[in-house]
């Protein structure tokens, strides 16, 4: 019984309730991120009961359910809440893995922790106690991560469900939509009359693989209770974070750029960044009214302070801040040793055109074609090194002086 799944459905909305408990029980709708299409991203069961579903236009939400509260996403708050939950769970097991595909689902490896946490039911109860009840968490415990997630989805809010018998038997009655497959793949299963995991598991594995390929084979294995996935604890990448509280809420781009420059200066003064470069920079802004905003810049090559400021400046110039900024946080990650770059010496010129023309003639005579090439920039922004430059045939007689 080694795996537990702690599940918090509608994670972003429940986290919003954590900050505003008066919203608990109200129909809540998660709106799009800033600049996104005005459609519903998620809805609580109370909103779903009123006909609201993901993908519905926000105007229709108001018509269907005028009392619904539409909340914007708050990535900063959600990431902080997830960090707190993971930290609390890490007090019980060292192997915690948040599911990147399903925010609010966390897998916990319980292998070898029986003496510490007790039997599965007691372990599930202890895991549940680490999450604030207002998030409506539920815990499933099963031999495999997939079965644990299905068990958690079947548990009542604030409850636990432990798979005691055969995993395949437990999974058999679960809907086919439980499988981690894209919607079109699930629709193909349903069109063939496969409604439950038991229906799929009853088919010969080879036939499923022949029809649906490797993903179908994996789905068959999951439905049959076989899941060789292991729990990988979240990586702890080295990072440097600096925060600057604004003396007064900032609205202008100039103020943000000054704040960014100061943050980068402070960050690169830290010992952790001495003679080091960074690969990724994340700028987060805490906005007035409790909202947040963030931008991520991944550098094409690791860079220092100037490169970070430059990359984030471009993003700031292109973005529209959704409100006055109260505090700015710069997080630098992907730290690597700074390596020197050999730049061309200014004014360094190739051999004189007459000499090159002569060399070209000799080469043509010897090989039948000129083997001189010029290096030209093609896609200097490309992440793939060989896409950045190309070799073009070079004829010195027609490229005089260049």
């Amino acid at each position, binding site marked *: 019984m080694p795996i537990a799944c702690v599940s918090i459905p509608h994670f972003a909305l429940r986290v919003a309730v954590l900050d505003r408990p008066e919203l608990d029980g109200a129909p809540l709708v998660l709106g799009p991120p800033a600049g996104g299409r005005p459609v519903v991203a998620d809805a609580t069961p109370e909103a779903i009961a009123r006909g609201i579903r993901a993908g519905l236009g926000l105007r229709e939400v108001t018509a269907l359910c005028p009392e619904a509260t539409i909340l914007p996403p708050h990535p900063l708050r959600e990431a902080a809440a997830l960090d707190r939950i993971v930290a609390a769970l890490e007090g019980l097991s060292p192997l915690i893995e948040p599911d990147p595909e399903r925010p609010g689902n966390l897998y916990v490896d319980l292998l070898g922790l029986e003496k510490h946490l007790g039997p599965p039911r007691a372990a599930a109860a202890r895991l549940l106690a680490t999450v604030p009840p207002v998030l409506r968490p539920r815990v499933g415990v099963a031999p495999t991560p997939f079965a644990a997630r299905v068990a958690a989805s079947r548990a009542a809010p604030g409850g636990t469900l432990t798979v005691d018998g055969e995993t395949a038997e437990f999974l058999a009655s679960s809907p086919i939509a439980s499988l981690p497959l894209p919607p079109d793949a699930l629709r193909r299963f349903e069109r063939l009359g496969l409604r439950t995991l038991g229906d799929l598991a009853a088919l010969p594995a080879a036939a499923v693989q022949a029809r649906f390929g490797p993903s179908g084979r994996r789905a068959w294995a999951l439905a049959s209770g076989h899941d060789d996935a292991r729990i990988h604890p979240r990586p702890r990448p080295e990072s440097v974070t600096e925060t600057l509280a604004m003396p007064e809420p900032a609205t202008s781009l100039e103020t943000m750029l000054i704040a960014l420059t100061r943050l980068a200066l402070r960050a690169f003064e830290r010992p952790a960044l001495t003679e080091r470069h960074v*690969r990724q920079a994340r700028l987060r802004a805490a906005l007035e009214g409790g909202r947040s905003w963030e931008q991520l810049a991944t550098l094409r090559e*690791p860079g220092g302070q100037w490169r970070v400021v430059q990359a984030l400046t471009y993003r700031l110039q292109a973005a529209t801040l959704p409100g006055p900024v109260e505090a700015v946080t710069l997080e630098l990650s*992907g730290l*690597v*040793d700074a*390596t020197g770059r050999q730049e061309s010496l200014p004014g360094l010129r190739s051999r004189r055109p007459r000499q090159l023309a002569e060399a070209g003639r000799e080469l043509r005579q010897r090989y039948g074609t000129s083997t001189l090439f010029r290096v030209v920039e093609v896609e200097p922004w490309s*992440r*793939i*090194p*060989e896409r950045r*430059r190309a070799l073009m045939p070079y004829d010195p007689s027609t490229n005089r002086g260049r």
Partner: protein
Amino acid sequence: MTVLTRGPEELPAALVERGRRRPVARIQDGWRIDDEWWRDPINRRYYRVMLDDGSLRTLYHNLADDRWYEQSY
């Protein structure tokens, strides 16, 4: 050039060039590039390594054909 790897993550452990084995003293950096999925997908795992003689090399494991290459420019 042949790259010898170690561990389940297949990290570069040594290079064999012209019959000579050159151990990797340190992996300075590692990153992955997944791009151009709309034509011929590019899936590479890059490593910036320092060999035991102090020279720096950039290698990548091309996941499409499971072979190692050196990015020399």
